[in-house]
């Protein structure tokens, strides 16, 4: 055989031998099942609880197999896009942030489940309704919040005489100045990550009374005294308390800096504490968590709601609906939450005093923060314009540019121009 036909033969042989990874449709599970798409959890036991306890239990009770498909962190939006575009691939999926709104047309109305569960388990937090209701209909059943809160070094704060985490941004600023002088600066992300920048910048803006767009979804109001005050604060906060490098940080940077003992305070989810306890117990002992400080107009937090939605094109709509109702029932839900300690903060008031909060009491601020949590871009309604604003880092860069030295007037004007351009079609 000549070179090229030898190559052809090899190709065919390989294709035949490894048909499972090559054949069309091989990417999906076959048979009468409910495919449950989920992002791989930060806490392994959470996924294991579903795989080893819940799924088999459901199959035993109803005969319907539950396939728990895990996709890696960060690839869920891509996967959901693909499924929504092609109309197949999963029946029920985890969903978060603004995605219930972007994909609303392809998601089933699950209001009946939501009402039921709400009644059964103490009622929903308002934040849950903000995240799950699209145009008056429940398109996702909220499952939990993954909060972004203040992480602080109790030992270093104690060195400057602070035993309790400061109540307001100004107080935090004063502490930061002292700590920077002692070579323990703060480190709040101002780069192009996703969670750790929005986690403090939007709450900062809101706590000074600033907002991008009004609740009508049309009027751009970012150019205001309130915004200017927030920007001015951010600038001095950066200059006097932080490392320069934060301007280029992504989400991983503050975790790294914490373990390297470079910073004394940052905004993060529970991952810093979790990782410190596991690999750096000495640092873990002196790490504590607290709600965001308050500004003149209140205290706010970023809402990062994980929920579950059913695709309305699913061939197993009825079965999936039953499954989701079963899953969210208190008999199942409580155990599932507990398997991850308090990493996932439930949106149902029935869990406000659940035993799991006592496993790691330092996580309790995450529970309390939910009462003041909002989606990025609030109070504007979540829609495509908002998604574009967030994807283009309009607000993050407004603050970042000011911190890097630009005039407050200029950065606000430039953000306003961008917002006006994006909201022009509305």
């Amino acid at each position, binding site marked *: 055989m000549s070179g090229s036909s030898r190559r052809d033969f090899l190709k065919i042989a390989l294709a035949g031998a490894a048909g499972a990874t090559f054949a069309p449709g091989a990417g999906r599970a076959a048979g009468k099942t409910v495919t449950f798409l989920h992002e791989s959890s930060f806490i392994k036991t959470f996924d294991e609880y579903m795989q080893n306890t819940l799924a088999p239990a459901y199959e035993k009770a109803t005969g319907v197999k539950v396939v728990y498909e895990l996709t890696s962190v960060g690839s869920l*939006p*891509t996967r959901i*896009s693909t499924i*929504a*575009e092609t109309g197949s691939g999963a029946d029920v999926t985890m969903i978060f942030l603004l995605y219930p709104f*972007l*994909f609303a*047309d*392809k998601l089933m109305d699950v209001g009946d489940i939501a009402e039921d569960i709400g009644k059964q388990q103490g009622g929903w937090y308002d934040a849950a309704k903000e995240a799950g209701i699209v145009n008056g209909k429940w398109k996702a059943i909220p499952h939990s919040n993954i909060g972004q809160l203040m992480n602080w070094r109790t030992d270093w704060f104690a060195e400057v005489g602070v035993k309790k985490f400061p109540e307001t941004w100004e107080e935090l600023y004063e502490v930061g100045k002292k700590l920077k002088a002692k070579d323990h600066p703060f480190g709040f992300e*101002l*780069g*192009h*990550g996703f969670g750790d920048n929005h986690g403090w910048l939007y709450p900062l803006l809101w706590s000074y009374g600033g907002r991008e767009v009004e609740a009508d979804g049309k009027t751009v109001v970012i150019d205001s005294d309130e915004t200017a005050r927030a920007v001015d604060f951010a600038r001095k906060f950066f200059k006097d308390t932080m*490392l*320069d*490098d*934060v*301007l*280029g*940080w*992504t989400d991983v940077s503050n975790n*790294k*800096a914490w373990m*390297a003992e*470079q910073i004394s305070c940052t905004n993060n989810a529970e991952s810093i504490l979790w990782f410190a306890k596991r690999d750096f117990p000495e640092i873990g002992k002196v790490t504590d968590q607290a709600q965001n400080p308050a500004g003149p107009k209140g205290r706010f937090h970023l809402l990062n709601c994980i929920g579950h939605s059913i695709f309305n094109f699913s061939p197993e709509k009825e079965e999936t609906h039953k499954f989701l109702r079963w899953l969210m029932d208190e008999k199942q839900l409580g155990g599932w939450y507990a398997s991850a300690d308090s990493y996932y903060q439930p949106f149902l008031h029935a869990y406000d005093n659940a035993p799991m909060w006592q496993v790691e009491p330092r996580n309790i601020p995450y529970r309390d923060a939910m009462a003041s949590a909002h989606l990025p871009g609030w109070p504007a309604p979540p829609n*495509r314009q908002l*998604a*574009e604003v*967030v*994807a*283009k*880092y309009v607000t993050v*860069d407004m603050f*970042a*540019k000011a911190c*890097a030295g630009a005039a407050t007037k200029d950065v606000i004007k*430039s953000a306003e*121009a*961008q917002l006006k*351009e994006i909201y022009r079609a509305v």
Partner: protein
Amino acid sequence: MSIRSDPLIGVVRPPHRAASLALWLDRESVFSWLMMTLPLLFLAAFVGYPFVYGILLSLQDRPVAQPGHFVGLKNFIADYHDPIFWRVAINTFVYTAVATLLKMVGGLGLALAMNQHFRMKNLVRAVLLLPFIVPTVLSTVAWMWMLDPAFSVVNRILIGLGWPRPGPSWLGNPILAMCSIIVINTWRGLPFYGITLLAGLQTVPPELYEAATIDGASGWQRFRYVTLPLLQPIILIVTLFSVIFTFADFQLVYVLTHGGPQNATQLFATYAFDIGMGAGQLGLGASVALTMLPALALLIVALTLYLRKQ
């Protein structure tokens, strides 16, 4: 053939037809077109069709998972008014131009240095290719650590020389961040440039050098008037490839800075991705990606003209 062929037609015809089929297939044009059919079909299906689709997308308002509707040039007009778009354009051109220049000069230097005989030359040649071989995302993760002021060796040296702590912020300062991605790109691509130019150097006939030396040419003159002109075709090809790849670079920025600080390192590819996959605006994302095409074509034409003139 003689006139006798007519009565023999009934007997001769089948092999005659098979022979004429074979002859027909062997004609240059027929053979060529038949041979090229499969690859052309492949390219048409997997490049042509998506390309046309991409153009159509860019003319539509197409949110993800929703039907699109035609809006003409609205996306392009939105890009025109988008200050980030212009920042991205400038970034991509600067990034491509500087990195390519550095790679060209550095690659030439590497080739000249390697064009001498010494032991372990083959091993050195293979080892020098490592930056090119290692998956970009992984080497970028290593660079992330090396550029952290707290861990950077350069910062330690600078601080030792008197620079105020903690030293330059390689990824936080917009200009330094752009320098950083240029450096990493150069580091990654220079070995390939170098090894390729080395191949070219090794085909230069030694007689030409001898003749030039006899004529009294110095080392530099030999390089300028013998080596460079002969290397020109290779330089052109490698540069074209390099420009195309660098212009469309995605991984490096996606992993290192995701476009920050404040869009100082945002490139066409990463911006299009953010808009398409992050905001779910497939039409707008396609319009950003499509603008790469005329820009790239312009660069290539300019480059080709310039190098041909030399």
